[in-house]
């Protein structure tokens, strides 16, 4: 497998820039820009939601009004005008397409162009996809096959209608509406997202995947993902994101909530490739995401992320290790170039006994970008025998960028063993010369070395994603070698 994988990496790379920057010309249903209680009632009404959900939204909205955008050291978050953003945009199509014939061909073309197969004949055998454009889910594939196992995989709007009890029970149970500024905003206005339920003892037979696409202009995307893995179940979930290249900033504030019940395991992988803005730092997606999972006894939650896109990334996929013997993992590669800012990391909250967590973060900065790891490991007084190991490495390509490491360790238990290690380095002249001496050009040498550096994380991704991720790293870092 390793060799096969490597073969693909070595494929010659065209000198491509952000290749998902096209827009789709499609009839879109908007709610006018601005946010107030009426907007929220309108969203809820459009989606035909039950009263309890409208109340959930309004309560979140009222909390949000009282909150401020986070201002953290070493992160430059611009003030946003929340009244200038549209909170709902949906490609016009007949409600709930029953077959592919009913899906607008422009939409199919869009996802085809993105390499996301939602037409049955082109589908990956081992993968089910929920494709989401702007505020709504366009199509979920392989539903029937999954249903046979009792697995629910659908848009969250559908879930609200068809499985209200499940949604009501778990929505907001891991990320409360008032958790933080962006979570409150999402809770008030979230439009769609994916819902997954894996019943007791079921191993999901294929990878589940959401594909998020922002298309509409001046529109925030606020999706919400809820994954419930019941006792002794297993699922691997993938998420991919792109957006058109626009000069205006685009806001994306999502929530992912995961419940991992006793002895269950969830793997959540992200390849985030939102439009990063142009070389001068104009445009791009502001990516403010709250991701958190709750682990019960003997449960395991593993986050893997490759973050190459977005003008600003603000996300800290976290594990609340509530159950005894539960395990949390976080593997991350974040690449920043030009004027991008990435502020990412994780929180590992050890509450149960014998809980374990592992953090591996690799930051790669180039251009004039800033790349920070920010993470918290907390061991509560009850969490006997907790173990954590964190490794946070930074690689600098060029002397105009920054690489920062901000770990926090709060230890309230004398049986804990918590270790953190971090290094900051650049590609050494010796390594470059060694590659050059074997005839390898600077660009190729940088991409080889960077991929090697990130390998520990890339190896955690499912195969199809790993290859895509490696290509992304290379594209993100094109032409940085001359600086280094």
């Amino acid at each position, binding site marked *: 497998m390793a060799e096969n994988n490597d073969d693909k990496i070595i494929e010659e790379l065209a000198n491509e820039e952000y290749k998902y920057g096209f827009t789709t010309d499609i009839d879109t249903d908007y709610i006018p820009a601005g946010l107030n209680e009426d907007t929220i009632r309108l969203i809820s009404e459009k989606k035909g939601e039950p009263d309890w959900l409208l109340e959930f939204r309004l309560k979140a909205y009222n909390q949000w009004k009282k909150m401020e955008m986070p201002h953290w050291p070493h992160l430059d978050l611009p003030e946003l005008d929340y009244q200038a953003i549209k909170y709902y945009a949906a490609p016009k199509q007949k409600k709930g397409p029953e077959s592919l014939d009913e899906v607008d061909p422009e939409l199919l073309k869009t996802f085809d162009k993105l390499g996301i197969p939602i037409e049955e004949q082109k589908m990956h055998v081992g993968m089910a996809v929920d494709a989401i454009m702007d505020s709504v889910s366009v199509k979920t594939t392989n539903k029937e096959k999954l249903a046979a196992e009792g697995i629910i995989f659908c848009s969250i709007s559908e879930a609200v209608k068809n499985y209200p009890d499940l949604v009501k029970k778990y929505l907001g149970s891991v990320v409360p509406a008032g958790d933080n500024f962006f979570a409150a905003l999402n809770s008030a206005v979230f439009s769609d997202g994916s819902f997954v339920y894996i019943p007791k003892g079921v191993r999901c037979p294929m990878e589940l995947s959401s594909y998020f696409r922002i298309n509409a202009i001046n529109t925030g995307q606020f999706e919400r993902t809820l994954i419930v893995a019941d006792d002794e179940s297993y699922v691997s979930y993938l998420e991919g994101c792109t957006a058109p290249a626009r000069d205006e900033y685009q806001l994306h504030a999502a929530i992912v909530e995961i419940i991992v019940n006793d002895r269950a395991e969830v793997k959540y992988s992200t390849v985030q490739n939102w439009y990063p803005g142009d070389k001068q730092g104009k445009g791009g997606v502001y990516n403010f995401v709250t991701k958190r999972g709750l682990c019960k006894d003997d449960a395991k939650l593993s986050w893997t992320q490759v973050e190459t896109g977005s003008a600003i990334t603000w996300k800290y996929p976290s594990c609340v290790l509530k159950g005894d013997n539960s395990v949390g993992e976080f593997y991350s590669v974040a690449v920043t170039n030009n004027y991008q800012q990435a502020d990412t990391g994780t929180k590992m909250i050890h509450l149960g006994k014998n809980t374990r967590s592992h953090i591996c973060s690799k930051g790669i900065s180039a251009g004039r970008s800033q790349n920070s790891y920010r993470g918290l490991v907390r061991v509560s007084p009850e969490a006997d025998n907790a173990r954590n190991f964190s490794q946070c490495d930074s690689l600098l390509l060029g002397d105009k960028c920054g690489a920062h490491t901000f770990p926090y360790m709060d230890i309230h238990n004398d049986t804990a063993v918590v270790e953190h290690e971090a290094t900051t380095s650049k590609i050494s002249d010796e390594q470059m010369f060694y590659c050059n001496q074997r005839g390898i050009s600077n660009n190729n040498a940088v991409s080889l070395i960077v991929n*090697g550096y990130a390998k520990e994380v890339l190896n955690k991704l499912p195969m199809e994603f790993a290859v895509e991720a490696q290509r992304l790293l290379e594209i993100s870092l094109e032409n940085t070698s001359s600086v280094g």
Partner: protein
Amino acid sequence: MLEIKNLHANINGKEILKGIKLTVNDGEVHAIMGPNGSGKSTLSSVITGNPAYEITEGEIIFNGKNIVGMSPEDISREGVFLSFQYPVEIPGVSMVNFMRTAVNEHRKYKGLDPLPASEFLKLMREKKEYVELDNKLANRSVNEGFSGGEKKRNEIFQMAMLEPKLSILDETDSGLDIDALRIVANGVNKLKSKDNSTIVITHYQRLLDYIVPDIVHVLYKGRIVKTAGKELALELEEKGYDWIKKEVDGE
């Protein structure tokens, strides 16, 4: 093959090479010997275009082309190979990936298509035989966690893969036990032909028992101070470098 004329080179403003003159013809094996700090490793770095060094004067003509100022990757693609004294570790980059990139870049330079994966892997298997490297090597990271002997065998393996016209072996014998030395030297000898040339840089005679030179040079204080046949190596082994130092410094 190679003609070096009046070569002067600096590192950090300090002159290390002070007028090297050297001619290597096709098919020849040259040994360059000399005491520590005489500039032996600098010479190999300068020929291969290491940007840490600055060439202030002189020419390096390789098969008719002056390669002074050429990028190290182009010098490599022209057919100059350096077996490093201290091969660098590159974590996470697998040998197979590394070599495949190198081989295909060489092919591209010659206007050839990249080698299909299966043929490439076959080539790797063949070439590994030269230095008795085991098959697990392909999946390991470049030089990472290799023993001293493995690193040097890995260098010769890469030489076999890239089929250079001129190979420079920089202190390839250092850190090797006698078995590893024999394996490495056999590898080099098997790769020898009348069309390619070798420069062996060494401090000691023992490698030259295995790789027999046609001509032996002594480098001292940045100049070649003595050139003779292979018997010079034996003489140096016996008498050390002091008599040469005296001869030169006495002048």
